[in-house]
């Protein structure tokens, strides 16, 4: 029986046979030859497992390794709290970005929206003396409106999301400079406002509480609500979904609104965390969010974006960076690590899927 499986596998995939013959004739060293001699079935299963669980394996491996090397500094509750606290804002922005990604759309404007919203909030508090909750609501609503505009430009006007959000993002940068003149804004009454991000709730920093709550909301939204189901469907096939009666344009607009709203919340928390309005403080969130979401798409599910995956993506990079800093590795290693991890994880995931389809 097993023999039969192997044979049919080899016949189904002529490359496997070619590779095997090539490796045998070339007389490769033991490792690669053994690897290539593995039957296609086992190799494909291994590759798929590696693609699906690779990121988590890396995460767990790092947690163990850093804990062994630096038990006194890395493996402490205080340090884990720091890791979660430092990654909270990035996770919120990346979690929001995950929604349009699930729908099949890119949003390049999130970083600029975060910067602008943070700055605007400081302005509203300092210049207009708005009460803190009102100012936050106004800023988050503006974020939502930017998202709705993104969605309308993409779905109703039919502009490619990449271009459309690049355009609206640049417009937001323009608004940012028009409002601030390119100069950071100082907070006049700081204490109360910085408490929004820095304060603690039963010993847990607010940032961690807010991150957890928002991720839970996003997860329920995508996985349990009707709207979330429609967003997933259009990400797989917009035309099929449309023909099944799904309001595609509406769903895309909602998805963009989610991303922008989360970016605005990220901007608010950033301003509160920094205690000032920085002109470009949130711009970097765009790239880190994309890498987290893509890294997450390779985790657990086969190349689909999902909230838990995005969290794993952010967490893996955060733990890696923290651990590398703890063992005193120079700062450039953090970038090497994050870049390499992303490329290898996504590559393994797509190779695994290719083998999965074959078998």
């Amino acid at each position, binding site marked *: 029986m097993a023999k039969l499986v192997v044979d049919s596998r080899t016949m189904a995939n002529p490359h496997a046979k070619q590779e095997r013959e090539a490796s045998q004739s070339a007389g490769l060293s033991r490792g690669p030859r053994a690897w290539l001699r593995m039957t296609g079935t086992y190799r494909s299963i291994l590759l798929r497992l590696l693609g699906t669980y690779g990121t988590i394996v890396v995460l767990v491996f790092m947690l163990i390794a850093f804990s062994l090397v630096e038990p006194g500094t890395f493996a402490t509750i205080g340090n884990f709290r720091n890791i979660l606290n430092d990654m909270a804002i990035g996770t919120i922005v990346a979690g929001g970005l995950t929604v349009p990604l699930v729908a099949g759309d890119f949003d390049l404007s999130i970083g600029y929206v975060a910067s602008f919203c943070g700055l605007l909030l400081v302005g509203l508090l300092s210049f207009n003396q708005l009460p803190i909750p009102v100012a936050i609501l106004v800023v988050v609503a503006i974020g939502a409106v930017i998202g709705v505009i993104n969605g309308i430009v993409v779905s109703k006007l039919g502009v490619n999301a990449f271009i459309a959000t690049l355009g609206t993002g640049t417009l937001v940068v323009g608004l940012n400079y028009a409002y601030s003149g390119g100069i950071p804004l100082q907070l006049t009454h700081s204490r109360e406002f910085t408490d929004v991000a820095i304060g603690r709730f039963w010993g847990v920093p607010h940032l961690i509480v807010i991150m957890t709550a928002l991720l839970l909301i996003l997860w329920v939204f995508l996985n349990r*609500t*009707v*709207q979330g*189901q429609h967003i*997933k*469907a259009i990400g797989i096939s917009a035309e*099929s979904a449309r*023909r099944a009666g799904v309001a595609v344009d509406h769903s895309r607009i909602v998805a963009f609104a989610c991303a922008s709203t989360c970016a605005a919340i990220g901007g608010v928390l950033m301003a509160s965390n920094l205690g000032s309005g920085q002109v470009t403080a949130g711009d970097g969130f765009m790239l880190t969010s994309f890498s987290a979401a893509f890294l997450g798409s390779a985790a657990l599910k086969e190349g689909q974006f999902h909230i838990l995956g995005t969290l794993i993506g952010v967490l893996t990079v955060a733990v890696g960076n923290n651990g590398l800093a703890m063992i005193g590795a120079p700062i450039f290693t953090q970038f090497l690590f994050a870049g390499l991890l992303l490329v290898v994880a996504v590559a393994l995931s797509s190779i695994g899927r290719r083998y999965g389809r074959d078998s």
Partner: protein
Amino acid sequence: MAEAGAISPPQTPFVSVRGVKKTFGGVHALDAVSFDLYTRDIIGLVGDNGAGKSTLIKILSGALEATHGEIEVDGRPVSLAPPAEAQRLGVETVYQDLSLISGFTAAENVFLGRELASGRGPSMFRLMRRKAMANATAQGLDDLHIEIPGLRTRSVERMSGGQRQLVAIARAAFWGGKLLLLDEPTAALGVRESREVLELIKRLGARGLTIVMVTHNLEHLWQVCNRVIVMRRGRKVVDAMSRETSLEEVVAYITGAKEPSLAMPASTAVVE
């Protein structure tokens, strides 16, 4: 002649298509096509590539709007676009490759766009009742004597082509479609799978559904259809009961070897 008509039962048609035209740019994809559909009709819609079959199906399903002409359902003039409106009027469509969402389970596919949910208000606040949907799907497939393992858990991309097609057709029937439009339901299916799909189509016809089936496989057509409509270059060239014509004749009309002797009178045209 006028009294006898081409279609025997003197009932009112369920759907009437009258003088439907569709142009893309300057191209006439459909040119004054008319026909009536009666309850329990299983119609094979055939024609060469570019004959206008797909355009006709898309108009009936609401995916396209006709440039000219009228469509009546139950004697009332209607507009079938968008697809949701066609569905509301009882028209369900199974497209060749676009009928199912590949990453979704059978149950999720059956309920896509019509999810059971608790709560009110916008769809982002309504929680899906996943168990209820899975149960209803299992029940629905059971009613049609379709057996598919793992319809709650397995995504349809992990199913065979035949199972996918059964799910897609069952979905259309599940929603109480009165007119079922099937685009190439047996294309790319094996012999046994084709037979299962054709059996299902027959069962649905026996239950009183009207079915229009686009196909290139005339053998399959003859197995299930009681009526044939042949399209050629955007026009209807034959509309006959399958027992009154033959496979050879239909092929001749499809290829153009045989032309209709006189301009085909629209079978709906009321003779006064």
